[in-house]
């Protein structure tokens, strides 16, 4: 593989998302400008200017018309994807940790941090009426560190700082379901292609596979360092895990020891079969291209690397 390095950010990458067709990559980082790139050649299409704090999360709706970003400057912004113009700003009392479009693209949710005496909250907006939030749910207990919409917009799946994974009802804001499989913070939640399964990446050095509707724990992928992100291949029974030691310890060790490789596991057998190295810092986010033929990773070193799989990857058969 000859990866394409996207160097549009000056600080560590916090999130990478492909749009539905996979021709665009959206990246955001701890600097203030999210970027959008063509995935085919790594050409930068544009940047979204307006945030004044670290951008924690980014999402794009299904027809690639709107982009949503959540930032530590206590705001969530809606952008026009084609022109890069800011359409709307949703202010919150604390930093926005995660945000997302519902599958239809009609609803927006974002979650806020529990700091400065304010509780952790989920805000839901209707995209056709951006003046007021449609709903605000305060979340008691451990704060939300990662959140995605459930299928059919019935609930929101939240990962918490204490390792809990919950379904939050869209209408009442109550916890319908809660499982505690992780012992530490859930850093990332990503769906399989058909949204029937989801994978969680946790600081407790494992990634786990869950059934979306029942939250039944199915598989565990073990490493020896905190896992910051995990993704499921859309075409093969593979998952990829990214992580490494904690960012604050990075300067004290070499990259070989830090284990900054992207690690590929078999989905069913939970066994690692491949590694891709290259980053100089822990990987913060990973995403497969929707066609499954490439993936990209963003790391603490500020680079996004877009990898096109070699034929050897597709020829590889897991021995069992």
């Amino acid at each position, binding site marked *: 593989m*000859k990866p394409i390095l*996207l*160097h549009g950010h000056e600080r560590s990458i916090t999130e990478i998302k492909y749009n539905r067709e996979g021709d665009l990559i959206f990246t955001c980082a701890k600097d203030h400008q999210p970027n959008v790139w063509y995935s085919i*050649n*790594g*050409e930068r299409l544009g940047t979204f*200017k307006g945030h004044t704090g670290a951008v924690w999360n980014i999402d794009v709706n299904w027809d690639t018309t709107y982009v949503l970003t959540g930032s530590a400057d206590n705001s969530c912004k809606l952008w026009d994807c084609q022109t890069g113009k800011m359409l709307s700003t949703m202010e919150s009392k604390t930093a926005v940790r995660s945000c997302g479009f519902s599958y239809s693209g009609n609803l927006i949710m974002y979650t806020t941090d529990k700091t400065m005496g304010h509780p952790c909250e989920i805000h839901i907006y209707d995209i056709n009426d951006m003046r007021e939030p449609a709903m605000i749910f305060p979340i008691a207990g451990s704060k939300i560190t990662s959140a995605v919409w459930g299928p059919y917009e019935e609930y929101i799946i939240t990962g918490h700082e204490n390792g809990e994974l919950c379904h939050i009802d869209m209408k009442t804001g109550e916890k319908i379901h809660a499982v505690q499989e992780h012992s530490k913070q859930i850093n990332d939640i990503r769906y399989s292609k058909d949204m029937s399964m989801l994978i969680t990446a946790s600081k407790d050095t494992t990634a786990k596979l869950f059934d979306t509707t029942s939250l039944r724990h199915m598989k565990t992928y073990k490493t020896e360092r905190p896992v910051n992100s995990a993704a499921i291949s859309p075409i093969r029974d593979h998952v990829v895990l990214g992580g490494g030691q904690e960012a604050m310890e990075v300067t004290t060790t070499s990259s070989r*020891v830090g284990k900054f*490789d992207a690690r590929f596991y078999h989905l069913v057998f939970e066994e690692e079969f491949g*590694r891709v190295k290259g980053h100089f810092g822990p990987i913060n986010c990973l995403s497969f291209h929707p066609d499954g033929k490439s993936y990209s990773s963003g790391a603490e070193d500020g680079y996004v690397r877009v990898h096109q799989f070699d034929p050897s990857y597709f020829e590889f058969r897991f021995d069992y």
Partner: protein
Amino acid sequence: MVKTVKTYKIEHRRAPKTVAKRKNWRKFGEAENDPPGPNSANTIVQVEEIPMAFVHNEEEQSEQVEDPLNKLKTQKLVSCRICKGEHWTTKCPYKDTLGPLQEKLQDDKPATADGAAPPGGPGAATAAGSAAGMGSTAGGKYVPPSLRDGAKRGAGETMQSKRDESATIRVTNLSEDTRESDLQELFRPFGPIQRIYLAKDKNTGQSKGFAFINFHRREDAARAITGVSGFGYDHLILNVEWAKPSGTS
């Protein structure tokens, strides 16, 4: 002159209509003024081939052991100078008992090494004594002319002193109140003493803080050095070493 050659591969791909449309979007934000195609400032195609390393689980396990911290764990990070235990010297439980003993032993080592150096003969002994004195300051590498081959004969003949100084030790860091009788008392147990010279101030008659002790036998002197060096006497810690011959000082 540098000639840069760039090779482009033109590919034709079929794409959905929406994707093709997006390909023609105008750039915006910081990329607004970029020319068509990737900007080399932001997009770098890595020249280096990064293969996917296929691993097996057994390899994985062996690699886990390879943590440098683990390696360090087997080594002693902290070693006590007194009992070689894994703690700081100041925290050693044997600090008060073993410590002074060992210091004595350590001082003993260079002393005996020096003692072994001078060859027989009264004349040569003086020369060797001076060599030992100088050698200790030079770190032992430097061979003084008097010790070099062919220098032994003749040298020192004129420098011959009346007293045999090979069994003389110098005691320093004495307190002002020390008297010769005190030194006699202190060094008597090590063997017969030929002479004690305590440096005194001419006017006040008080000790200047150092003394020379001449033993009859060199072995006694050596034992006195190991025994008394580092000894606490009158709130001061004594320093005992071989005396430099009077000729060199």
